[in-house]
């Protein structure tokens, strides 16, 4: 393979004086045997969601595809089930479903990351080399940005990484006035037509969230732009920013550097204040280097979210093998820390989702990657039927604690819908107020997951239809209030308005159920809600799955399929 001159220049710059900084011995981080083994009885561990055998995980980091192999790295505590001692753990996969773990790829070893290796992203350089930029915590507890590269590019697993002796490449200074505690999570970089790379780093000034923009010609010398790529007053610290193009009228993804009339842009932020990921769709003015959300897009916590439940620090990458943009997200526990320590682990990753721009161009749509369907076992398919108001039935023949269920509803009596009170603007509050047991006209109808035999415990995912001002409004809820008899759990209800017209379209719902998670997709992926639940009775073969209708009006079930899910090999 010819060595391009650009690559040689890059290596020279990386090595600086020609000395490669070797990793400090990392015996502390290899002592995985130090932590005690978790208990045998583990009713909450998932079977097809990504999680390591034990300990704490948080943000997905630097996801990529390299030479046909997918890589997932993630924040991981080598020593326990709470946040701390963070390193970048590393796994690879050929199919995003089954994984092979490797040794941690990045861990404290330089001055510029001695107090922590926090989140960051991968950029695939034009000649195919992946480079990681990540946040390090230095000896003064300042947040700085560092670079790491694979030690050996002919290792397809990219097991070892070396760091630039020039680190940190970006740091808060008196001159740039960046707050030392509010400067983190560099994004994948994109190449402009002028030959300069750009990336953003999350920050804030007082309560204004900022995406600080940096530019570089050689990927080493980064110059802060005068103005941020974007900012928004009152939103607080912007964590894990993600900025990427999406094709108009296509479900395919594109490379992060793609520009032109066929794409719009998405800027997504993780809001530290509310722990929600929200995004806007807009345009990117490459000359001024600013992002402008489209008219009507809401910048802040009441804007569009990837997921209206537990889902944070998410990050996309371009899958060049299948031309998809794939979204990873961290789903933390809703249990108490004491329970986490007892079970010996905390945190899982969501099922990777393909992401694309809705035909309306006003929101994104997500759907679990098709590869997950290979875990489906026997299908239970039920015929079309009417589900009368006040009735429910059990879906048997699948492992209810480890299942994939898709159901579609048709409504004929739309005129009977309750009127939506104009003051009901907050869908989550509305779902909390009108839980699964509160009756209604059209709804609540949907699925009861992880239900115990006597219905003392269940997680209800359902729709309600209201008559709005000039159209029908669909509310989708995930009600965890009765998910567990253990009151130490966070049983907050989640909800969102689903932009589907029940006059013309079926109402579809898909739920991926995996022991302690119910991951729901409404309207073929227009609204996603992930919930963590910890039933004490509805465990393993004692869990049941039902479809229910607590409204007064009948609904039609136009389709219903459920599958047991096989266990994936995660480690």
């Amino acid at each position, binding site marked *: 393979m010819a060595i391009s001159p650009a690559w040689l220049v890059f290596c020279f710059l990386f090595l600086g004086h020609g000395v490669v900084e070797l990793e400090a011995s990392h015996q502390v981080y290899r002592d995985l045997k130090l932590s005690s083994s978790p208990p045998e009885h583990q009713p909450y561990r998932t079977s097809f969601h990504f999680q390591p055998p034990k300990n704490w995980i948080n943000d997905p980091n630097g996801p990529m595809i390299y030479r046909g192999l997918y890589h997932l790295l993630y924040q991981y505590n080598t020593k*326990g089930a*709470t*946040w*701390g001692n963070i390193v970048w753990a590393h796994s690879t996969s050929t199919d995003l479903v089954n994984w092979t773990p490797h040794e941690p790829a990045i861990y404290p070893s330089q001055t510029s990351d001695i*107090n*922590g290796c*926090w989140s960051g992203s991968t950029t695939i350089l034009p000649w195919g080399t992946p480079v990681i930029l990540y946040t390090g*915590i230095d000896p003064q*507890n300042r*947040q700085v940005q560092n670079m790491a590269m694979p030690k050996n590019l002919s290792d397809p697993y990219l097991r070892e990484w070396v760091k630039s002796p020039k680190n940190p490449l970006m740091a808060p200074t008196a001159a740039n006035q960046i707050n*030392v*505690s*509010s400067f*983190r999570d560099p994004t994948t970089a994109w190449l402009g037509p002028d030959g300069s790379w750009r990336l953003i780093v999350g920050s804030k000034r007082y309560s204004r969230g900022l995406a600080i923009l940096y530019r570089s010609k050689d990927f080493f010398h980064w110059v802060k732009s005068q103005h941020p790529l974007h900012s928004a007053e009152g939103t607080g*610290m912007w964590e894990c920013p993600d900025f990427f193009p999406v094709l108009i009228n296509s479900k395919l993804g594109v490379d992060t550097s793609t520009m032109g009339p066929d794409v719009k842009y998405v800027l997504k932020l993780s809001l*530290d*204040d509310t*722990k929600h990921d929200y995004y806007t769709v807009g345009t990117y003015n490459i000359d001024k280097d600013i992002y402008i959300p489209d008219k009507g897009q809401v910048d802040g916590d009441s804007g569009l979210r990837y997921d209206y439940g537990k889902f944070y620090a998410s990050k996309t990458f371009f899958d060049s093998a299948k031309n998809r943009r794939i979204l990873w997200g961290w789903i933390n526990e809703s249990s*108490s*820390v*004491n329970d986490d*320590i007892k079970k010996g682990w905390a945190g899982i990753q969501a099922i990777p989702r393909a992401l694309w721009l809705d035909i309306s161009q006003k929101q994104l749509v997500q759907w679990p990657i098709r590869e997950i369907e290979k875990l489906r076992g026997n299908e239970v398919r039920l015929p079309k039927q009417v589900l009368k108001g006040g009735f429910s039935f059990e879906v048997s023949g699948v492992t209810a604690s480890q299942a994939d269920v898709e159901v579609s509803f048709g409504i004929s009596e739309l005129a009977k819908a309750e009127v939506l009170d104009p003051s009901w603007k907050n869908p989550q509050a509305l779902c909390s107020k009108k839980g699964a047991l509160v009756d209604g006209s059209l709804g609540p109808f949907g699925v009861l997951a992880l239900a115990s035999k006597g219905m003392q415990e269940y997680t209800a995912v359902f729709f309600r239809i209201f008559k709005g001002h000039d159209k029908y409004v669909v509310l989708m809820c995930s009600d965890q209030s009765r998910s567990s008899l253990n*009151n*130490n759990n966070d049983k907050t209800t989640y909800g969102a308005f689903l932009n589907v017209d029940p006059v013309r379209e079926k109402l579809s719902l898909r739920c991926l159920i995996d022991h302690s998670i119910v991951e729901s997709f409404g309207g073929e992926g227009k609204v996603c809600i992930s919930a963590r639940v910890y039933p004490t009775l509805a465990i393993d073969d004692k869990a049941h799955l039902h479809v229910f209708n607590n409204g007064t009006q009948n609904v039609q079930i136009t389709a219903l399929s459920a599958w047991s899910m096989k266990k994936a090999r995660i480690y």
Partner: protein
Amino acid sequence: MDVRLIEQTCKQTPLYDVCVSILKSDSRSSKADVTGLALIMVDVLKAKATGTTNYIKTLLRGNLKGDVRRGLSSCADLYNTVLEADIPVAIEALQKGDPKFAEQAANDAGIEARSCESSFSGHSPLTESNKSVQDVSSVAAAIVR
């Protein structure tokens, strides 16, 4: 002592009086910014949790009915989580600048204290301690916010 900063900060917590009385009587608050005030409150939380743990140990040495003993053992375990997990996570998160973990840890201390209180089927010997911990935990979480 920047009384105004203390008052402004405490106004954003659910228990203004508790917050102000703790901070005003702590000499460290004179030089503290908001993160500093949060660290002081976490330290007070630690002291209260330590005090409760010691009290539990003392009670356990006595002659107790089975259900009270069980409740106290449960509480010892819960408060151990507060001291060994919640407090260190909150401190590290505040020092390194990732406040959401500090907020969640402070909140969790309150959850563990509430769980302790529910461990007693009859009368709880720890009601006052648990309430105190819950109060300080909600103030600490709010300051971090």
